């Protein structure tokens, strides 16, 4: 157990995929304090998803030391994951998939409820609360495959929130969404951050959608953090302009 105030602390982290020689991310040093709202931006293949999955232990780092909630990630993987809500990049859902939205949201609590235990009333209360928070309570008994991209994204978000997480990791939550849905999800993230004071790390390739409450931006390129600073400083920097290269705000 490491005693400090950081919620996440990564020291010289390097993550290599099995069978690969070159690390996807390397020399990553990162400190995140409780309650922070951070955007991680970078081009495709920069290692953004790898960074998120190194934090929640889905990928094992090959070098350095990583701590989440003061616990070493490698040793306390499953314990840590119960407190981390993760929303993966929008994926294709079979329209005939036999799952109801409420069951998917409940599945976020699986680890928290624990093996050999059944969902109780308080677990369902949490499900209804988080579905209400994202405005999807009317969709509880709808099949998951029938949702639009934005609705599906909100269900995944509500699934992560049902976990009652201390930390929320979001991988491209705005991808495949139209402008209106993006705005909705952005407003939602701001509200969740304000209301629940959760630490949020969001991976995005679109600078136009850095939520307004997000005060810190980290720029990742070729597996390395090249910039880390306040929103104002990063957005005004020359490097960002050169990376974006007048590409409509998209990397």
């Amino acid at each position, binding site marked *: 157990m490491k005693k400090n105030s950081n919620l996440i602390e990564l020291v010289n982290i390097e993550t290599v995929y099995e069978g690969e020689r070159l690390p996807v991310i390397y020399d990553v040093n990162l400190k995140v304090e409780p309650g922070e709202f951070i955007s991680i931006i970078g081009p495709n293949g920069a290692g953004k998803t790898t960074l998120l999955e190194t934090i929640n232990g889905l990928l094992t780092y090959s070098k350095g030391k990583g701590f989440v909630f003061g616990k070493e990630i490698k040793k306390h993987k499953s314990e840590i*994951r119960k407190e981390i809500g993760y929303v*993966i990049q929008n994926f294709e859902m079979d329209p005939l998939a036999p*799952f109801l939205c409420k069951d*998917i949201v409940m599945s976020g*609590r699986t680890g*928290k409820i624990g093996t050999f235990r059944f969902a109780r009333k308080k677990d369902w209360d949490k499900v209804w609360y988080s579905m209400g928070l994202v405005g999807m309570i009317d969709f509880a008994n709808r099949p998951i495959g029938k949702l639009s991209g934005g609705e599906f994204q909100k269900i995944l978000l509500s699934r992560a929130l049902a976990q009652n997480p201390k930390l929320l990791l979001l991988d491209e939550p705005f991808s495949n969404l139209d402008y209106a849905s993006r705005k909705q999800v952005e407003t939602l993230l701001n509200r969740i951050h304000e209301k629940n004071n959760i630490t949020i790390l969001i991976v995005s390739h679109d600078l136009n959608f850095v939520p307004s409450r997000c005060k810190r931006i980290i720029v990742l390129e070729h597996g390395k953090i090249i910039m880390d600073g306040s929103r104002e400083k990063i957005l005004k920097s020359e490097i960002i302009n050169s990376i974006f290269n007048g590409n409509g705000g998209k990397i």
Partner: protein
Amino acid sequence: MIDFPSTLLITSILGALLAGFACSTTGAFVVRMNLSSIGYLMSHAAFAGAAFGLMISIDPIIGAIFFSFGISLVLGPLAEKARLESNIVIGFLFSFMIALAFIFLNFIPGTAASARALRILWGSIFSVSTTDLFLLSIFSFIIIVFVVIFYKELIAIMFNRKLAESSGVNTRLYYFAVLFLTGIAVSLSIRIVGGLLVFALIINPTSTAYQFFFDFKKIFIFSPIIGIVSCLVGFWLSLISDFPIGASIVLISAIVFTIAIIFSPKRKKGKSKIKKVLA
């Protein structure tokens, strides 16, 4: 229709009922996890096992069960270790098992014994023993307990394995368990339905249930019901028509599946209400 002693008839009916239950319950996972070719693998593992049994002069069924148990144990870890899709590993093991079977068959003296091994592929319900019934009953009980206790974990994994893992579920363990249970379901049902047709009993009832329900709970309930009904009706068809039992069961389950596809509410086009409003 031929007259059978009632005890033989009851044993056979129970056998059909339990095999229908065991295969179609595990089928609920197999269909969702895209593991449909596991049926081919297990049946050919059983075939190789039966050939091996005959080669070393033991009961071919013991060899069959031994081989399919073994395969179901190594399948999951092998797919993980090789970092390959389960279906690829299934394909690899499938051809390997056939190769073994032919080698074993080569060493069996006389064609009569080879025919005994081949019988594993066709199945015969009247060869069902009380031991088979006992084993199938225990297995059915285990699978019910497994589904009830680990329902939430199974739903999480079947929705998305990575998300399940990220919420603190040890997905590998459940994945192996599903592969293992399917392997056992196949090896225990093989004497009844036959190796070549057993996978139809795994896939057809669940696929039928999929046509009607969006709630996985209902699929878990209706898949075995459809499986049991298919087995019983197939058994009856076999008695009155003299069709082989496995073929009759598969024929019925295929007919049920076809009807389900035609009448599936999931595939019907929604009727527009706009016109009514405008009118």
